[in-house]
């Protein structure tokens, strides 16, 4: 089996699906000639031509608006927003049009658009190249939100997203685009949406994370293991719809939960998960659910490493639930 990084796995998924399904098209800033600012679409224009891999102007609302129109008429567009931070000019198109079309048309117009966009900090990108806006899209009815954590996941999840009929925000963890490497099957396979995965089994604390924070969570869990603390680690994979059963089953076993997210604390997705766990597993909880998040400030350029959760903070949060 070939070894790939996340970029290569995304590229492989796009190439496979474009060969399989002529309705799949790509559009975005620098996706064609340049192959994408992170090279995720590298070489695709050579194989599929400029009618299927389109360079657009710097106009995010236009990119998503055009993708919506294509989807309504039967194509399966995969637009790229160069950084998740740039998604805000397209926010109205996503929330008010894309998320609502199927519902507003009484099911006549599904809008199968998969928006790929790199998110998150850790690359010294500053305020405008580091944000994790997943909570905003999870909050919006009509959208699915998917975040892969390694190359195998990236390929299998992306193929599932392109083959289903609802709009998806596919958030790619850019900090580990190249750092995360692993074996990826050649050819076709899919990972079902809405299913979490237990990455490591354990007995004392359930640790829930997604995307690049999964690796941060594992760092903390390794440190905890050295102290004899056994943690179960869950990679959520699909954030909307999220897999309540896998989380609740685990917490019923461990009695404790820690959620690790990179986004700011207030009104983040960790709040949703913790409220869900508290509601569904209250009688099994030995301590309040803890959330470890980014701080409630704009993403800082110089204090990036202080801002982002790290292994030590994961460890101390795990200890906090045990000491409660």
């Amino acid at each position, binding site marked *: 089996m070939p070894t790939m990084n996340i970029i290569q796995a995304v590229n492989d998924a796009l190439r496979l699906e474009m060969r399989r399904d002529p309705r799949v098209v790509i559009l975005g800033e620098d996706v064609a000639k340049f192959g994408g600012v992170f090279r995720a679409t590298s070489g695709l224009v050579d194989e599929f031509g400029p009618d299927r891999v389109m360079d657009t102007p710097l106009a995010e*609302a236009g990119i998503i608006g055009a993708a919506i129109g294509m989807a309504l008429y039967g194509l399966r567009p995969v637009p790229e927003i160069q950084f998740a*931070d740039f998604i*805000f*000019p397209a*926010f*109205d198109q996503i*929330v*008010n049009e894309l*998320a*609502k079309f199927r*519902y*507003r048309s009484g099911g006549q117009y599904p809008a199968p658009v998969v928006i790929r966009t790199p998110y998150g900090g850790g690359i010294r990108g500053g*305020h*405008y190249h580091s944000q994790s806006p997943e*909570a*905003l899209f*999870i*909050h*919006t*009815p*009509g959208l699915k939100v998917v975040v892969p954590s390694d190359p195998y996941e990236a390929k299998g999840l992306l193929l599932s997203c392109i083959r289903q009929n609802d709009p998806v925000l596919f958030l790619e963890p850019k900090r580990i685009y190249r750092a995360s490497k692993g074996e990826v099957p050649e050819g076709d396979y899919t990972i079902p949406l809405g299913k979490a995965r237990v990455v490591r089994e354990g007995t004392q604390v359930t640790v829930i994370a997604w995307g690049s924070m999964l690796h941060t969570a594992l760092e903390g869990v390794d440190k905890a293991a050295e102290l004899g603390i056994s943690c179960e680690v869950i990679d959520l994979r699909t954030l*909307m719809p999220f897999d309540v059963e896998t989380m609740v089953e685990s917490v019923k076993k461990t009695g404790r939960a820690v959620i690790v997210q990179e*986004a*700011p604390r*207030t*009104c*983040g*997705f*960790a*709040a*949703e998960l*913790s*409220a*869900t766990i*508290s*509601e569904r597993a*209250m009688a099994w909880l030995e*301590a*309040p*659910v*803890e*959330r470890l998040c980014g*701080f*409630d*400030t*704009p993403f*800082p350029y110089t204090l990036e490493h202080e801002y982002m959760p790290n292994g030590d903070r994961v460890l101390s949060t795990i200890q906090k639930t045990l000491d409660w």
Partner: protein
Amino acid sequence: MPSMTYREALNQALAEEMERDPTVYLMGEEVGHYQGAYKVSQGLLARFGEKRVIDAPIAECGFAGIGVGSAMVGLRPVIEFMTWNFSLVAIDQIVNNAAKIRQMSGGQFAIPIVFRGPSGAAAQVGAQHSQALESYYVHIPGLKVVAPSTPADAKGLLKASIRDDNPVVFMENETLYSTQGEVPAGEHLVPLGRGDVKRVGTHCTIVAWGKAVHTGLAAAKLLAAEGIELEVVDPRTLRPLDEELIFESVKKTGRLVVVQESWPVASFGVDIAYRVQRACMDELDAPVEVVSSADVPMPYARNLELEVLPSADDVVAAVRRALYLV
């Protein structure tokens, strides 16, 4: 104390602040000659002239951005969105510029700007004009978020928001504009970040803001007939949140139902639920309930719209669950 509508209270706040401080100005669609889509700016153009009451083109991103720029150079803009639904065209200016410039400039540029307008459903205005969007903005560091439920709070909070040196998202409600209430005359300020107990009770705490406060109060009235007394806490400012007032109430009642018009998932209501389970775990006698709008785009049909919105009956049912009466 004079009695007036929520609309008049907002108008008075704007007029008083524009009178007091020549750097305050109002800009938005139809705020001048038409006197505001909901008549909140009635009479202000005639009184303050067209340099301070500015009719903007239908370009939210443009006039929100001009507002941010003018705040950087010393003005105190009040930007009206005809409704918050349309703010989604301008959200990049709010999230990426207004909310960040103070931090990005190392404190050199404060952004004293108020973005205001109605949020939430009115009656049969469909999926794109009925959204309660507070949960988006509460998630954004650098913003304050305010949602008044009464005329007195509307006036006091708007005046305080205009005087604040940070960007404030000020969410009014179309169905509250004509509600009546007593409003202190003259200098009436409600500090941001301080909540208010709208009804004292002992059996269960309700936390609600904006229109949902009235849904909570209606439920309280229904349940009082059976001897169940609800305490209704209105945080008024959602960010920063008056946590202490909420925790104090929950520690007294042992139960909490949050009522919000927001969609349920990853919403501000569940954030409050998280904070309460964290801070009051030993005092809670039941899981926190959150009553929200249904997790769908707003349907146009009136019967379905009423099904989607949180009602007093929904709150009553949630309180019964929290009290183990079902």
